[in-house]
């Protein structure tokens, strides 16, 4: 096969695949831009007859979206920080030292990987009742942090193991302490793993649904995932607002993801190979 033809074919298939992945979100945008009366029309049309950009501004007053957005940010940000604070030292230590119980620790990480908040929602709910943490953001931060920890430890352990010890020893010779070597040598070199861990945790927490659905009661403590579906209930069907809000929630995260795409591949490599 001619090389030029091959490249053209690959590009063609590639663009079709890209289109396939984007189509639902294009439909999301088109629906978000339709006037409400057009949404009940049967059969529905493809394009809005009138591009109702005001849906994107009206939605802020139709529901406490700003508050929900802030809740989502606090929960996802808090969970990411907490996960990292716990996973970094553990993964680093396990990657650098052979100690008694290292195997057991890594096995624990692998096994807790199998626990998902969804599967344990009854237990999580009862625990939060016992701790008097229902309807608090702390509960959501704790749960999201804890359940993402195993994957982070796994990815970070892989990345740290891939950094040659000699690099750090060179830093020791230059007078750096252990912590100094960690921050100035190992962390920069294993940046892809750290970025993967951060992004993965943030996204998972940002999109978490079932725990928030069970634990959050007050409207001002609900993240977007729980607040958004209430635009479409048996009493009202504001699909245009639902998808306008969805896009407001999705777009920043997609941009973040696209920006770190290169690191992501590197981070996943280290995590799966080691």
């Amino acid at each position, binding site marked *: 096969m001619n090389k030029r033809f091959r*490249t053209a074919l690959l590009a063609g298939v590639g663009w079709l695949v890209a289109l396939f992945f984007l189509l639902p979100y294009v439909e999301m945008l088109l629906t978000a831009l339709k006037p409400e009366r057009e949404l009940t029309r049967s059969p529905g049309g493809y394009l809005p007859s009138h591009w109702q950009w005001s849906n994107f501004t009206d939605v802020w007053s139709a529901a406490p979206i700003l508050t929900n957005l802030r809740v989502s940010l606090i929960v996802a940000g808090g969970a990411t920080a907490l996960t990292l604070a*716990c996973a970094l030292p553990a993964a680093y230590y396990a990657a650098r030292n052979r100690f008694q119980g290292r195997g057991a620790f890594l096995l624990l990480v692998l096994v807790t990987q199998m626990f998902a908040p969804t599967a344990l929602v009854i237990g999580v709910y009862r625990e939060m009742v016992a701790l008097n943490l229902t309807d608090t953001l702390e509960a959501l931060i704790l749960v999201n942090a804890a359940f993402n920890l195993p994957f982070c430890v796994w990815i970070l352990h892989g990345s740290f193991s891939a950094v040659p010890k000699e690099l750090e020893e060179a830093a020791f010779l230059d007078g750096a302490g252990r912590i100094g070597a960690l921050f100035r040598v190992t962390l920069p070199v294993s940046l892809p793993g750290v970025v993967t861990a951060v992004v993965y945790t943030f996204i998972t927490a940002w999109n978490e649904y079932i725990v928030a659905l069970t634990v959050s009661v007050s409207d001002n403590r609900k993240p977007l995932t729980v607040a958004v579906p209430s635009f479409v209930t048996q009493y009202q069907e504001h699909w245009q607002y639902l998808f306008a809000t969805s896009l407001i929630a999705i777009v920043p995260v997609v941009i973040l993801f696209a920006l770190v795409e290169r690191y992501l591949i590197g981070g996943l490599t280290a995590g799966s190979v080691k």
Partner: protein
Amino acid sequence: MDGVTKAGRDASRPARLPGLRRALAPLPWLAPALLLVGAVVLWPVVEMVRTSLLDISSSGTTLGGAGAANYTDLFDEPDLWPVLGRTLLWVAGVVVAATVLSLALGQLLHARFPGRRAVRWAVIVPWAASVLMTALIWRWMLDNDSGVINRVLLDLGVLDEPVNWLAHPAQALLWMMGVAVFVTLPFTSFVILAGLQSIPGDVYEAARVDGASGWTTYLRITLPLLRPSLLIGTIVNVINVFNNFPIIWSMTQGGPGHATDTTTTFTYKIAFFDKHVGESAAMAVVNFLLILMMVLLYLRAVRRPGARA
């Protein structure tokens, strides 16, 4: 913390570190992680098992021990076995389809062509987007009256009249599995892409010199070297797909009746709709044992002598 554990020095002077101190040395590093996992992950597991053995009223007060009553109640549910069967079909179908498609997709994203970066970004979108919101747009696209899927199929002449896709259990399940594959593809493809990028080019060089065909090279070199990626991808997917809640919840709520429930939505309905908390906990315990069994079987199946996973 400095000086407690300089890597490499421990071995050369073990006598200076008393046994206890040596055993406790990892603690400052591991304690935060252990504490978090213990308090927030393991407690609910224990709590769940304990709850499954308790008699709890619909208002949430504990009335005493229940022995195995919650489990016998659960196994007497006429819907249990269909739900279990459907869950296995759901997991196997979604994970297998996603893995096979991801192998192709990973290869495509690995190849060089103009616009590859943009295509990679597009493929990331369903991963970064919330699963819930993706499921909601599919539900809207499948809408009986205004959905774009009916409209396209009508305009193409494939259908004569609109179909209410999500009202028919079998069709609804297939569409939901499709959505599950759709949201699973990005992560799996990227894990496979990462695996492909870690294969050194000279391996292929050698194969070409030996005159191996493209297909043989793929089967004999690429696939075996992708084993770690496939392993991590499959395990994460099995767990996530098994526990997926938002897709089914937002598209059919497991209905009509229990006709599209998997164990996850079933567990939730027993607890929060029927208010049978103890029985729901029993279902969750069964659910967890199933995942554990599937992951262990999978690990066993893929572990061969010399495999590094």
